[in-house]
């Protein structure tokens, strides 16, 4: 069964035809719209090699609506001629006829009629000849009969100028038998169905070809957040390097752990309202490890452990103030304090990645909240060279191999260094992280042994791109 009666007829005619047939001719024979035959050709084409169809464009002359009217009823000038009786007609009356205006001047120039301007009741029109030949009508009838080629080029163009003829381009198909021609074609199947599989009918069925240049349908799936995918990558890198994850699940921290424990003096600008979010409720920490607090207080105000201290009046009230932690180093301080209380000392490698908060005005490059990545190693006799070596391995895993180090200042590390990497795109060195050895004034009051060094580094997750491999 083919696609409808037109396709059926087309196939039957084609079977009988010698060579092929023209779609427009078939349409004319069947008395259907040409478009119906074109549709049948296309649906047969989609079935494979049943037919072959060659697109042809032919030019044809067609009558305009006015041309049709003239072919039927005669030209305007002929109609004017016929309406003039032998006794003549008043010109004003003639002009009121439908063809009057156009027909009058044409009939005049053909010398079929004349005007007597001296007549008693105004100008009067009279026949000049007894009969005439209406060539315009005859020519248009030829075109209508499909014999436009019998007209001279000049004649056609004159009729076109009078907007009686138009030339139209017709796209038709020259249809011939294909290599798999058959009058009993069946419709192609769109897809394999369970019924076809169970009945085995797929063996006898033609299938519609696929359009391989179309896009596929995206899987209907959920997605992980891109930044948190990077977080996963960083966790993985730390775990590969043998680092244990520190607990950081306390956004609210006391000034003591966030600043004082890190030997950050109480007048430090970072402790200003402008830089840090302080809490109204709970405004103060309820408990602090008081023994340790006293050692911190003494180190700040008087020094000790080989330090001059900052020589100022250290206030417990200031240390109690609660805030949204400004860095995860507060959590590192807690972890190192716990480590210091475990005897004997065991070396550790720690990391954390979590949210921190700063009182920043939000814009394209500043967030009031971001994720800090931090790595910490504590062991006997660690050096600046060790820090650089660990950083090199860490950044190599991120695909960053060109590193250099710049002396820097951090309140709680000494020596301190900023890590720069060469940015191929920007063609310059850009800062990728900050690092250093924690100050003895931070470590010794915790109770860590004197010859234990702690190296640490930090970077911001938001500034990282996804590590090179593997994706996703």
């Amino acid at each position, binding site marked *: 069964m083919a696609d409808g009666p037109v396709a059926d007829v087309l196939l039957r005619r084609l079977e009988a035809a010698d060579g092929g047939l023209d779609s427009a001719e078939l349409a004319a024979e069947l008395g259907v719209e040409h478009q119906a035959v074109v549709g049948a050709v296309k649906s047969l084409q989609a079935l494979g090699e049943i037919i072959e169809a060659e697109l042809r464009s032919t030019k044809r002359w067609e009558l305009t609506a006015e041309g049709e009217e003239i072919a039927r009823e005669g030209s305007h000038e002929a109609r004017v001629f016929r309406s003039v009786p032998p006794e003549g007609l008043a010109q004003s009356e003639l002009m009121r006829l439908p063809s009057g205006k156009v027909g009058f001047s044409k009939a005049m120039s053909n010398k079929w009629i004349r005007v007597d301007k001296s007549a008693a009741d105004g100008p009067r029109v009279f026949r000049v000849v007894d009969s005439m030949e209406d060539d315009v009508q005859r020519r248009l009838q030829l075109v209508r009969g499909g014999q436009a080629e019998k007209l001279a080029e000049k004649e056609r163009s004159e009729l076109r100028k009078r907007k009686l003829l138009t030339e139209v381009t017709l796209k038709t198909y020259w249809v011939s038998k294909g290599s798999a021609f058959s009058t009993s074609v069946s419709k192609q199947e769109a897809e394999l169905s369970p019924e076809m599989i169970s009945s085995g009918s797929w063996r006898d069925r033609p299938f519609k070809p696929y359009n391989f240049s179309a896009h596929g349908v995206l899987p209907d799936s959920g*997605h992980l957040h891109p930044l948190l995918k990077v977080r996963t990558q960083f966790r993985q890198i730390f775990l590969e390097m043998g680092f*244990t994850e520190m*607990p950081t699940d306390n956004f609210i921290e006391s000034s003591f752990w966030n600043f004082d424990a890190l030997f950050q003096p109480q007048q430090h600008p970072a402790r200003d309202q402008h830089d840090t979010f302080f809490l109204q409720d709970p405004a103060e920490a309820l408990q602090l490890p008081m023994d340790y607090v006293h050692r911190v207080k003494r180190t700040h105000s008087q020094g000790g452990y080989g330090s001059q201290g900052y020589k100022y009046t250290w206030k417990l009230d200031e240390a109690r103030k609660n805030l949204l932690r400004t860095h995860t180093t507060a959590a590192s301080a807690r972890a190192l304090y716990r480590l210091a209380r475990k005897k004997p000392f065991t070396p550790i490698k720690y990391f954390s990645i979590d949210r921190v908060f700063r009182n920043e005005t939000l814009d394209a490059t500043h967030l009031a*909240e971001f994720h800090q990545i931090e790595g910490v190693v504590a062991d006997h006799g660690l050096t600046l060279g060790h820090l650089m070596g660990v950083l090199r*391995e860490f950044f190599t895993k991120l695909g960053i191999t060109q590193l*250099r180090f710049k002396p820097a200042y951090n309140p709680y590390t000494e*020596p301190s260094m900023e890590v720069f990497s060469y940015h191929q795109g920007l063609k310059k060195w850009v800062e990728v992280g900050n690092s250093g*050895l924690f100050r003895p004034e931070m470590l010794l009051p915790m109770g860590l042994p004197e010859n234990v060094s702690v190296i640490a580094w930090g970077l911001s997750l938001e500034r990282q791109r996804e590590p090179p491999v593997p994706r996703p």
Partner: protein
Amino acid sequence: MPTVSVKRDLLFKALGRTYTDEEFDELCFEFGLELDEITSEKEIISKEQGDKKAEGASDVVLYKIDVPANRYDLLCLEGLVRGLQVFKERIKAPLYKRVMPNGEIQKLIITEETAKIRPYAVAAVLRNIKFTKDRYDSFIELQEKLHQNICRKRALVAIGAHDLDSLSGPFTFTAKRPSDIKFKPLSKTKEYTACELMNIYKTDNHLKHYLHIIENKPLYPVIYDSNGVILSMPPIINGNHSKITLNTRNVFIECTGTDFTKAKIVLDIIVTMFSEYCENQFTVEAAEVVFPNGKSYTFPELAYRKEMVRADLINKKVGIRETPENLAKLLTRMCLKSEVIGDGNQIEIEIPPTRADIIHACDIVEDAAIAYGYNNIQMTLPKTYTIANQFPLNKLTELLRHDMAAAGFTEALTFALVARTTLLPGLLKTIAANRKMPLPLKLFEISDIVVKDSSRDVGARNYRHLCAVYYNKNPGFEIIHGLLDRIMQLLDVPPGEKKGGYVIKASEGPAFFPGRCAEVFARGQSIGKLGVLHPDVITKFELTMPCSSLEINIEPFL
């Protein structure tokens, strides 16, 4: 990090050579500075106020250099040049000396009224100084840099510099009622009372930031000379009478403040930097300060302190193997004059008054490392052997995140800044911002919320929550419920009331549509709620479709 702006050509002249921008950038990097920007006054004005305003402005090239926050000795051209020249071994670090005057010593007497507002003062005299326009500008700029940094915007210390020849000592630092203080301040043509001045300066873009330090105090600090001339009303403004000019030869400097240590450091920095231009270079004339208790002290302190550090400690901390002699040389290049003494392993280091940042041996170690060159240090891996562990809560979170995405939900990351107690509003805002996306929208987030908890040392704690929302033309309670069932399946929590199982029970909550809310119980405790959101909630977030949500605490499943 403070940024110091210096004229490039002036800098090169003082350094005795020129550099390309790249060479100077390299030198800065090595020394721990950062050449932040190369610009000119004209460029700065044109950037900030447009080309029109910049017409006629100077196009002298300026280097903007970032200086570490603890290096007050590098906050002016003079200090930068000195630091770099010593670093490059082109000069030796100068020895700063305090000298007694030929005649009578200048005295500053502190009265007890200052106790409650600004109890400390120190002073010194720069004798026979020679200013030029550039030196003068640098002198003013250094005071400004110190005010902004170590002085904590004049709250801790405020500096006043005066033409000593226009004044007559001894000076008195006292505190008076604002209405009783009347003088002609800098760059004004008539006298005002302190009350009037505080009003006038409310609209002064520069000074308005300092008013709060003394505003609303009953007494304002003020310094007089023996004729009753007001030198300054710290920390706001100096008097016009003793204003220094390019012709000033003798400068009286006073620093008042609430932090004695910092006041002494600030004074030391100013006089060490600018005594370079005194007739007797690097000498500073002493001044005596008498405290309310009658004790008197001489300033500036200009104290040199000796520290002893073992060479092997430096080598061990940096990870290098240098001889003690070489280490001493490296330190000397950082303005820390050092020599090897004792058993040949001891290095004696002299800390000059310019280096208040050196408070521990670790600061000395850093300077040795800088002079050695950070990038010359051999990188090594520590032999620290450790077994890695994940923080269990984060491990659980990571596992669940992947399964949530596999269940067709998309992860959101929303701000925690308000120290929120629930994740739901963040997800609803995310949906509101993504209304154009095709329905259904299925989002989740696993993150911490914060609640008060008096059992914790800070009085608050985090809980790890899992929240999911389903937004579509239908409420989709069954979808959210199905997600809960899937989560429980993953966590190996069976359905049912049995111990260790989970169940949902009809409940209510202000966020939910009545009759469409259930409470989730698992492992014997309530862990959260799920349900269809109340239309009022939906519309408050400017949403138009039904929405269901689930929010549970995942910590019981650890």
